[in-house]
């Protein structure tokens, strides 16, 4: 077990290194290939070629990529120093570099935005998990009936709806026309819980809609499969109440793959968050990334990408461990 964990940590680290290398290469090399110099993005609109060169030198962009990458990695693990002009600032590890745009270290920027994304993700996850699993269970229990068909077609509709459409539509109806929900800016949970929930509500629901559908379908399929398992028949043969049979024996098996998928989905939620946040104007990591992309703020883009990848890799890892915990048959070797 321990050496499994160790090995997994190691593979995860290797994976992250490769991802960072690719990402780094892509973001710093592709512009170059496309004939643009990242330094030009950094300098002002009136800068002369000399200024561009000076900036490139300052940012280390004149160095070979390998050197730049090494520096970047050093920043991640040991922090690095940045030239402010009169003095140097130390950017403590993990240092993803300084934003081109506002000269602030990327890492605190990410941390700053994280609560919003987490608020969004957690709320949505709760809704979709409960809603999806419930719908799936009901549908499976009423298999073949009208309710089952309706739920499943609705589920398909759910996966088919683009977030940016549902989100806008919901906003148009509930915020602008019915005025049921407040518009306004995102507020922190601890500042104004009601406002926080009100602002996030539509985001939760739209994001949850996308996933709930998948979970409903998965739960239903899993349920149907499990219900016909021999061990469920055994449970019945023992004289267990139907409630216990479904609630304990069936659900135990149904939830195992759900937990797995859930972990992976949470890990890759950033993608959905990007769209949701930009539709609902939530200042989270997703918005940050879009803004960074739009302003060509490469260090931020790089930071967010790596951060997202880290999330996914971590989620994978956790899921594997979790799987071993919930499924006694899996032996980590």
């Amino acid at each position: 077990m321990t050496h499994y964990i160790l090995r997994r940590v190691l593979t995860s680290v290797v994976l992250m290194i490769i991802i960072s290398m690719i990402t780094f290469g892509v973001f710093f090399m592709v512009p170059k290939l496309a004939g643009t110099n990242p330094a030009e993005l950094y300098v002002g609109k009136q800068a002369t070629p000399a200024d561009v060169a000076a900036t490139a030198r300052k940012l280390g962009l004149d160095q070979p990529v390998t050197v730049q990458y090494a520096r970047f990695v050093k920043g991640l693990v040991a922090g690095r120093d940045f030239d402010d002009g009169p003095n140097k600032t130390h950017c403590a590890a993990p240092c993803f570099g300084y934003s081109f745009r506002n000269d602030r270290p990327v890492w605190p920027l990410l941390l700053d935005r994280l609560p919003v994304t987490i608020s969004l993700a957690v709320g949505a996850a709760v809704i979709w998990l409960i809603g999806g699993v419930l719908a799936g269970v009901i549908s499976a229990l009423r298999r073949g009936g009208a309710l089952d068909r309706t739920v499943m077609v609705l589920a398909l509709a759910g996966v088919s709806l683009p977030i940016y459409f549902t989100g806008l539509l919901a906003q148009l109806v509930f915020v602008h026309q019915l005025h049921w929900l407040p518009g306004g800016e995102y507020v922190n949970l601890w500042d104004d819980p009601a406002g926080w929930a009100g602002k996030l509500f539509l985001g939760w629901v739209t994001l949850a809609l996308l996933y709930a559908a998948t979970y409903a379908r998965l739960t239903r399929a899993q349920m149907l499969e499990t219900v016909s398992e021999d061990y469920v028949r055994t449970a019945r043969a023992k004289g267990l109440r139907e409630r216990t049979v479904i609630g304990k024996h069936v659900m135990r098996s149904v939830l195992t793959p759900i937990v797995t998928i859930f972990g992976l989905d949470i890990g890759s939620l950033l993608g959905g968050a990007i769209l949701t946040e930009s539709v609902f104007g939530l200042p989270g990591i997703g918005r940050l990334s879009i803004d960074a992309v739009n302003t060509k703020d490469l260090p931020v883009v790089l930071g967010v990408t790596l951060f997202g990848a880290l999330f996914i890799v971590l989620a994978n890892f956790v899921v594997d461990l979790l799987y071993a915990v919930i499924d006694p048959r899996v032996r980590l070797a």
Partner: protein
Amino acid sequence: MTVGPVTAPAETQAVEEASVAGTAIEGRSLGRIAWTRLKRDRVAMAGGVTVLLLILVAVLAPLINKAFGHPVNEYHQDKIDPNLGGIPPVGTWGGISREFLLGVQPVTGRDLFSQIIYGAQTSLLIAFTATLLAVAIGIVVGVSAGFFGGWLDSLFSRFMDLVLAFPLILFAIALISVLPPTKGFRIAVMIIIIGGFSWPYIGRIVRGQTLSLREREFVESARSIGSSNFRIIFKELLPNLAAPILVYSTLIIPTNILFEAALSFLGVGVPPPTPSWGRLLSDAVQFYEYDPMYMFVPGMAIFLTVLAFNLFGDGLRDALDPRANR
């Protein structure tokens, strides 16, 4: 207990009877059986018909447009109210009229109907090609990993993990936005990115299927008569992989349509004036309070298309593999 064994004796019976009569000629292939099953699934058939219609619409866009629309980029300034920033006059349902079946686009007054049907062309082109790419890579990688196993499998599996670990949308927009945004190039890049990131889904499934197929005795029996790996892969494995691949391709297409639309929505899709549903939608964001139809029409187009593909793919899956309920 499954329905599996029920059909087996029934068919056996058929064989027996036929052999008695001595007129057994053509067997029913699994494909035919699936087709019979699919035909019974009305929802899936509706999806399938819609998909076919869509493809037809995309292919015949110029003809259809001639009949019902206006030239795709023709401006109709008279249909909009320039003082309100070019939205169609308030209260006209986005300018819907007999002349403009789906209304007009704000600012330019372009015919939304033609934008939608040409948009279908763009969406489907990108989604289909990207899916094709994904399927091609997925098959090659999945089959090699599953069939040859060993270090190749480890390598490819890790590789798939790697691709899946990329925050896809972000990576895509970042990458696309640093590349020159000319039309052909954009489309190519989008196809490569969408296909290049969705193949691991196919790859994993193909690998899994290959792994289980490889254990089936018919592969061993093929080997025992001296078949080469090449023959085993092409003659024994691929025909059996066709069904899952087909199913997952039809299920990946809607995802890819959504993805293309999302990229366009985020402003890194096909460059204007090439019509694109995602871009129409993102364009609509600024007008949606006063011209909700403009948002509604492309939104519904995306929704219905994706839904149709999903319904069809879902039905196809049930038909091809009645036991896998998911």
